[in-house]
């Protein structure tokens, strides 16, 4: 078990290197030039006024004139020493920016995942044990329908409904959860609910098919035959086994969920990691983009590792070497 975890963590290193190379190269092959931000919004017009020499100096001060391999080497050393430099645009260390944005995104992601599980698992089980009844059809239409709706549109419709019918909009200002939990909740409940319903659509489908498969197993028939109540059979024998594929999907959902969080942060103007990332990308803020993407990749790999380890807890037959 320990050696398995250590080996998996060691495998993180080449993967993270690849992620960093991919991002590093992607940012630099395009026509976008980060010095544009320093020239302000009127970059097109003022460009002629700024001399080429000044631009060169600016590039040099940002180490953008070095060979790409040298740039990469410098950056890797910086990241390993946990000092990923300053943001081009905001004139403050990347680490501070990330630290201020991270709690919000983690809060949204965790609450969403928990809520999605709470919605999806019962729905999937009910749908399976009442297969081909009206409730099963209703739940299946619900889940396949929500799968098809793009999340930003669901968000827009939710805002429209809350505005038109309840005359309510989320508060403009964002308060951190330890500052003012009530305000925090007011701002976040709607995006979290939308994300959770969206994720639960996928999970409920997996839960349904997993439960259907387990219900056909011999040991479930035995459990019924020895006179256990349906509740006991489900809770002791069915749900635990049906959860295995669901956990896998929940892990895969992590990457998709981050995409959703990013869009929700944009739509509801929440200053989280996704919001920071989009604004960094649109302004060519290389240090911010690089660090945030590496960090997200790292989190996603950790989640996948945790998912694999959970298998062992749920199913003692699975052993790791």
């Amino acid at each position, binding site marked *: 078990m320990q050696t398995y975890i250590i080996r998996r963590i060691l495998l993180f290193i080449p993967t993270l290197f690849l992620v960093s190379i991919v991002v590093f190269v992607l940012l630099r092959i395009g026509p976008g030039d980060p010095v544009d931000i320093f020239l302000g919004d009127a970059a097109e017009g003022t460009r002629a006024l700024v001399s080429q020499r000044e631009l060169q100096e600016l590039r040099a001060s940002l180490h953008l004139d070095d060979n790409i391999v040298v740039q990469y080497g410098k950056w890797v050393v910086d990241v390993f020493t946990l000092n990923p430099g300053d943001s081009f645009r905001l004139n403050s260390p990347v680490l501070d920016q990330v630290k201020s944005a991270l709690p919000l995104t983690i809060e949204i992601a965790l609450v969403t995942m928990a809520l999605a599980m709470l919605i999806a698992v019962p729905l999937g089980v009910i749908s399976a044990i009442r297969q081909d009844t009206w409730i099963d059809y209703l739940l299946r239409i619900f889940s396949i329908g929500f799968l098809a*709706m*793009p999340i930003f549109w669901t968000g827009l419709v939710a805002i429209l409904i809350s505005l038109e019918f309840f005359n309510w909009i989320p508060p403009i200002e964002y308060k951190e959860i330890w500052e003012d939990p009530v305000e925090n909740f007011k701002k976040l409940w709607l995006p979290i609910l939308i994300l959770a319903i969206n994720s639960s659509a996928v999970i409920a489908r997996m839960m349904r098919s997993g439960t259907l498969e387990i219900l056909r197993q011999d040991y479930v028939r035995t459990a019924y035959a020895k006179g256990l109540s349906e509740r006991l059979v489900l809770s002791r024998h069915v749900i635990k086994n049906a959860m295995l594929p669901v956990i896998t999907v929940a892990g895969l959902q992590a990457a998709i969920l981050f995409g959703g969080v990013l869009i929700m942060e944009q739509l509801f103007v929440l200053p989280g990691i996704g919001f920071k990332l989009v604004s960094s990308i649109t302004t060519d803020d290389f240090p911010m983009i690089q660090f945030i993407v590496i960090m*997200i990749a790292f989190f996603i790999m950790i989640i996948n590792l945790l998912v694999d380890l959970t298998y062992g807890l749920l199913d003692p037959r699975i052993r790791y070497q």
Partner: protein
Amino acid sequence: MATRLNPLETAVRAFNAVGRGLARLGRFVRRKPLGGIGLFLLLIVIIMAIFSRQIAPQDPKEQFFRSSPTTEQPLGELLRLKGPFTSAVVPDRSTADPLDSKSVFFLLGTDNLSRDLFSRLVYGARNAVVLSLMSVLIGTTIGTFVGLISGYVGGMLDLVVQRIVDGWMAIPALVLAITIVHSLGPSTWSIIIGISAFIWPAVSRIIRSVTLSVREHQYVDAARALGASDARILFRHILPQTMAPIIIVVSTLIGAAIVIEAALSFLGVGLTEPSRGSWGLMLSGDQVQFIRVQPMVVLWPGIFISLTVFGANLLGDSMRDVWDPRLRGI
């Protein structure tokens, strides 16, 4: 030497082939009515995409204004955010006489920039179909190739390729797409590359796993014993086995591609105005501000996206049930 067929025989054979195809399709639709619905929805979108010019009643880029100039608006009142079933008299630009006017009818009303909403939705279908098909095609081709080679050769190469795929998949699809599209500059091709960037690793994983099992089959050994080259074994004996999973995955990925394209435009890194119409763009920025005035302007594009993705998902699910039940849930 092939015997030459006379034209009649060729026609009869083609007719029979089409007939057999339709019969198979009919059986599929009867067995899986939901798949039939999905196919129907996709066909509507594809027809809208191919015949946009014939279906769209107006030019999707034209901004309409009433031909009644006032002092405030010398060009005439702009027909902004009109409701559905509006008709108006507008100047006719096709004739030389500036006083000529014609009557136009806006089936679904107009958008914030006084353009015909229905025509833009129709052209949006072309945009969605072209971008998603192209990116799925490119992504699937690369993914198939990588998966085949990685699974067939195995060893060190497989290990290295799989690590690359791992790293690539650790970046969320949307983040990868935004980065690529912004870096390459907003154009149709950069969007296609951005979307196919998340398709190839997923496809390569599936193709690799199929290849791993197929290459152990006896008929592959037999082909090798007969002296077939690696390329021949890969493309004549293994590739055909991967076709069912490829088709199934493609139908699912088309839905995802359409959503990602729309999300890119929504986030402001995809297509930009002026455009002939993109469903994602119609949901972004300027249009959204007027959601209270004319909610349908924002609701329609979302309905079109949802129905298309819904169709692709239904079709994919049904094909999976029919051809390859093992893949259920991927």
